[in-house]
């Protein structure tokens, strides 16, 4: 029976039998554009890699500075008891020799 399903199948079968002409090779300018885009992406990838290294280096430096600050914090916080001693002695010598 000539149902719509059968009609559609026959149409598909006839359409699928048509062989397509061979694909022509890419023209020289198009090939060059593909290769140029590839080179550009490689350069961008290298730059991105360099950026990652720079960021990692900066983060490391910040970490070292923070550790150094923590380690020396106790020394900074300790008040110097005799920091004016030398100046006082100089004054005594100058005012009351």
């Amino acid at each position, binding site marked *: 029976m000539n149902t719509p399903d*059968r*009609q559609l199948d026959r*149409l598909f079968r*006839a*359409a699928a039998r048509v062989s397509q002409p061979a694909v022509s090779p*890419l023209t020289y300018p198009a090939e060059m554009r*593909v*290769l140029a*885009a590839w080179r550009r992406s490689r350069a961008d990838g290298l730059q991105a890699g360099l950026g990652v290294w720079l960021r990692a280096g900066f983060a490391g430096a910040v970490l070292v500075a923070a550790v150094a600050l923590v380690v020396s914090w106790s020394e900074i916080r300790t008040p110097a008891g005799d920091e004016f001693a030398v100046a006082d002695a100089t004054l005594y010598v100058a005012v009351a020799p």
Partner: protein
Amino acid sequence: MDESGTQVAELVTRTRAGDETAGRALVEHLTPLVGRIVRAHLPRRTSEEDLVQSVLIKVFTRLDQYRGAVPLEHWVARISVNTCRHEFAREAHRPELRHADLSEEQCAVLENLADQEADLPADQGLASRELVEAMLEALRPEDRLVITLLHLEGRSVEEIKAITGWSGPLVKVRAFRARRKMKHHLAQLMKERAT
């Protein structure tokens, strides 16, 4: 891996390392494959060469993402099909085909479909293909894709899954719905022909 697979793998490795000669050889190797896919899924008013070029640019700029789990050709086919699908999606207008738009040869195909039960003769192949392609233009990109892969290229559901990344049930549901729309459209053309 067979000899040609090994050669392709070597080309990929050398291209990744920056070897321009290998890059050129890879372009030459992939162009026929990409060209065939693009031709089968070419949206209206889109240049075939432009689309082949866009696909190859995508392939080369993503070459570092290729892990080698599937043959390179499968990976490239998937990129090609998805690029075509996105191009389809950009088409805002999907004209419905009317009987008055058909050529004389396409009308003859319709006559034959309605009156005969045997397969269409070989000399009506081209008109049949044109008719199917014109009907496909009225469909959504996914529907168009699944009909082309399933009925025009004769691919299996497994192959369509690999190319599109859809699940098996999704492929079947889309194929069913797309076929129903095509059937409805064909019936409409038949009705217009009769009046």
